[in-house]
């Protein structure tokens, strides 16, 4: 695999880096350290700039109006766009546009007209609801929310937890059990309108990611028309599985942005900070932390790019995507932890972005498939399918 960047990729990376440094970071210094949104005027101004650059809608397939950018380039940009305080979960505060829910690319034409296209135009927002209080990593067994057919409708009862954006969304994807005798094969995915009677956002769930909350949902005799079944009945898990694996790669890349930035901060700091009469840069304990940081960043970057290259080439990439997500999320957490140690008291204060990255990176080891689930995927593919 040739990891040398093309001239176009190099230019795009430089453009993204300059955009973050010149447009985002100066605005960020005026915001609360836990902010996850810009002033609407600033957002509109910067989104217009991004559109003029031809980069709006990164992650949206070209046939749906996204920029003609391949996955490797998308990953390189994800590493750049997350290199600021809010960058892990709100890269550039969303001025590069959203991607919509990947599963909707598999929707019927009618569903695309009602949900996908308005979302890509920025007219509707959506949420994704899989996890329940009974568990998230093993949804096939944990899902207790039920959907029962009643004429042309399905009637949904149950609840979901740790759901982002459901209180603001126009619709969402809700997974419910439609065949209680089956595990994985008894789950169906429904497109649910949030203004439908029986849909309730019951509470805010505060997490380490204190810039943004999750929600707990309750469904009470929520009626959903049959035409809102996404994919086939009882095959909710199989819809768009390739796209889910693919989405893990830019997700992993975004973990690296704060890690790269934290390492840069460390290198700059140890060259000016003195202890006991000499620079931190001369202390072996500090040097080794910086070396370990560099190894973590480079290892994760290699695995992320390898996964992106494989996915882009059409080769099987589930193992590589799982490795990239596992290693990048864990390595980035270690890098930021060491960076805090090097920066001492300042590292844990809200004067620097390190404490926010530290909190938010902890969540990345759980979100989008916990580290243990990634290991399970890798083991299944490395050892073989019959031993799990």
């Amino acid at each position: 695999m040739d990891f040398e960047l093309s001239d176009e990729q190099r230019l795009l990376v430089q453009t993204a880096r300059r955009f973050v440094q010149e447009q985002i970071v100066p605005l960020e210094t005026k915001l609360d350290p836990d902010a996850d949104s810009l002033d609407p005027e600033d957002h509109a101004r910067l989104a217009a700039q991004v559109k003029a650059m031809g980069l709006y809608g990164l992650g949206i397939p070209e046939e749906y109006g996204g920029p003609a950018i391949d996955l490797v380039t998308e990953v390189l940009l994800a590493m750049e766009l997350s290199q600021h305080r809010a960058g892990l979960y709100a890269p550039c505060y969303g001025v590069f546009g959203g991607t919509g829910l990947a599963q909707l690319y598999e929707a019927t034409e009618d569903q695309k007209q009602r949900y996908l296209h308005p979302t890509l135009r920025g007219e509707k927002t959506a949420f994704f609801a899989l996890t329940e209080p009974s568990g998230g990593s093993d949804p096939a067994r944990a899902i207790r929310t039920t959907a029962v057919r009643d004429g042309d409708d399905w009637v949904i009862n149950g609840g979901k937890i740790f759901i982002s954006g459901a209180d603001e969304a126009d619709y969402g994807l809700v997974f419910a059990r439609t065949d209680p005798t089956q595990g994985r094969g008894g789950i169906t995915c429904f497109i649910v309108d949030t203004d439908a009677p029986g849909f309730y956002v019951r509470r805010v769930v505060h997490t380490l990611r204190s810039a943004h909350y999750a929600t707990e949902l309750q469904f009470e005799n929520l009626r959903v028309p049959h035409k809102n079944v996404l994919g086939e009945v009882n095959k909710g898990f199989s819809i768009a599985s390739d796209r889910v694996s693919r989405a893990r790669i830019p997700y992993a890349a975004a973990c690296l942005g704060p890690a790269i930035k934290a390492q840069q901060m460390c290198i700059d700091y140890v060259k000016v900070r003195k202890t006991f009469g000499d620079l931190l840069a001369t202390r072996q304990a500090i040097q080794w932390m910086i070396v370990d940081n560099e190894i973590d960043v480079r290892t994760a970057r290699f695995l992320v790019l390898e996964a992106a290259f494989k996915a882009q080439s059409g080769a099987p990439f589930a193992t590589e995507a799982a490795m990239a997500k596992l290693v990048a999320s864990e390595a980035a957490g270690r890098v930021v932890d060491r960076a805090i140690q090097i920066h001492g008291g300042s590292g844990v204060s809200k004067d620097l972005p390190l404490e926010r990255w530290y909190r938010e990176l902890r969540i990345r080891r759980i979100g989008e498939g916990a580290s243990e689930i990634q290991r399970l995927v890798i083991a299944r593919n490395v050892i073989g399918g019959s031993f799990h």
Partner: protein
Amino acid sequence: MTVRMSKPWASLSRENIAGLGAHMGVYEVQDSSEHTVFIGYAGGKSLFGLRGELERELGRLGTGHRFRCEVNTQYMTRYKELLMVHQADLGELPRDNRDSAPRLGRLRPE
């Protein structure tokens, strides 16, 4: 922590504010008719945290008001939660939040 703030009310006075720590957190202010007029937060950029923010409120609103506050490092999401709960309970935002509220969702607490 309950969805609605449950701390006791205290008169918005210099003496009561002086006893507060410079913590991050959230607060509510009511007028003499016991209508909540403002929900705010003391964040990472607040000088002297809750104490500083409530001194500012006293300067802005004057005496005759009361306040309650909650020390909370998750001040941003708690602030939004309190605004959403107020909106769900009363159908509108507090008077002094109407022009400056962040984007809010629809919460239906039981």
